């Protein structure tokens, strides 16, 4: 059996910073109102010339550098994004070219669950083709948010995070779970620009290419679905929640994170968050947080690390990793 190790990681964040005070002024609300609602004090938004692919390239390059690999070493590239470079071809094609990757290129759109979806798929791919895989989560939701949309505007941030998987001997993946409920496609959506509602002058005039969110439905189901996926993953690994060393949840909203934690028995000391500085970066939120946790030495060899997320669709996914790998039974 071929297993894997995470041997490289990296992030890319735009320099342009939007504080909650600035957004409060824009939307006519108090800065503290924003912070109390979502726990976000500032977020990064792309500037002219920065795109989903350009962020992905920067994060991917940083992860490859850390792993000591070049594009020629990467057998497969998977980019998780819900804000693609353009409708066609895939965002991964742009990233593939820029990074000089010689292998295949794939996109995954599971919204904010996308990175964990990609990680689970990559671990399966690794078993049939044990060569390095680059996984990137990259999103630029500031570009798909209407300028006057307060509900989304205070939440979204742009960024990218990446990891490199290389073949290894230890068993890193102790448990996993992923799923979807396609009856909830209205929770967060961009109506126009696809085959269901092709782009017309009218769709542009009506602002139907911007994302819209049903915050109540997202909250309710995010909590319910993430609790479920966390419990299933821990159960499949036979691990009690109290034994997990580091929990890296999708950085959606501090109140959603706190609710999930309280209902699953996760305590503050286990949870790593950075959304107060970056906002909700969608597919990028977990790999950015994971990279920062690693750089801050919050994760040590042998630690149990739980990654868990939910996304529009709605989707959910979680994995339990033994950092450094557990010994594989002969």
């Amino acid at each position, binding site marked *: 059996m071929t297993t894997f190790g995470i041997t490289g990681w990296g992030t890319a964040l735009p320099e342009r910073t939007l504080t909650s005070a600035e957004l409060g002024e824009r939307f006519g609300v108090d800065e503290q109102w924003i912070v109390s609602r979502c726990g976000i004090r500032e977020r990064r938004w792309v500037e002219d010339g920065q795109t989903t692919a350009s962020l992905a390239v920067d994060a991917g390059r940083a992860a490859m550098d850390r792993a000591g690999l070049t594009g020629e070493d990467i057998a497969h590239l998977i980019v998780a994004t819900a804000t693609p470079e353009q409708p066609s071809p895939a965002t991964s094609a742009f990233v593939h070219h820029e990074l000089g990757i010689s292998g295949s290129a794939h996109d995954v759109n599971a919204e904010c669950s996308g990175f964990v979806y990609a990680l689970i798929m990559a671990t399966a791919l690794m078993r049939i083709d044990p060569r390095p895989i680059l996984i990137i989560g990259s999103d630029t939701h500031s570009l798909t948010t209407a300028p006057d949309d307060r509900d989304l505007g205070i939440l979204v941030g742009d960024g990218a995070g990446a990891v490199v998987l290389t073949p290894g001997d230890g068993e890193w993946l102790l448990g996993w779970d992923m799923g979807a409920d396609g009856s909830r496609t209205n929770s967060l959506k961009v109506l126009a620009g696809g085959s269901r509602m092709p782009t017309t002058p009218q769709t542009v005039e009506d602002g139907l290419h911007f994302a819209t969110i049903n915050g*109540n439905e997202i909250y*309710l189901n995010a909590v319910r679905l993430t609790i479920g996926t966390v419990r299933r993953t821990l159960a499949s690994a036979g691990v009690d929640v109290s034994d997990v060393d580091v929990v890296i949840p999708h950085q959606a909203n501090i*109140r959603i994170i706190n*609710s999930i934690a309280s*209902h699953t028995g996760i305590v503050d000391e286990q949870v790593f968050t950075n959304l107060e500085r970056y906002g909700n970066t969608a597919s990028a939120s977990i790999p950015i947080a994971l990279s920062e946790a690693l750089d801050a030495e919050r994760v040590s060899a042998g630690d149990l690390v739980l990654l868990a997320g939910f996304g529009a669709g709605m989707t959910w996914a979680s994995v339990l990793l033994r950092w450094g790998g557990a010994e594989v039974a002969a």
Partner: protein
Amino acid sequence: MIPTLEVLVEQMQAVSGAPSIDPDAPLVELSEIDSMDLMEWLFSFQSSHPDAGVDAAVFDNEDGSLTIRTVHERLERAVSADAVSER
């Protein structure tokens, strides 16, 4: 099966952190309660009453007049309708 009005008020205080809640005050005037507090309460209610058939519509507030007492009345109607449909 459903909480009394007094218990519902206590539960809303617990999820929102509001020191006191007037059950007859429109929710839009209660600055210490927001929609996420309501959803957090609803999640807990749904978890403990999975067959009650209560969803976010219990907080529909198109004219801005919704109060905790109104929510309680809706809960009572939802649960009694559910009981009738089961007979």
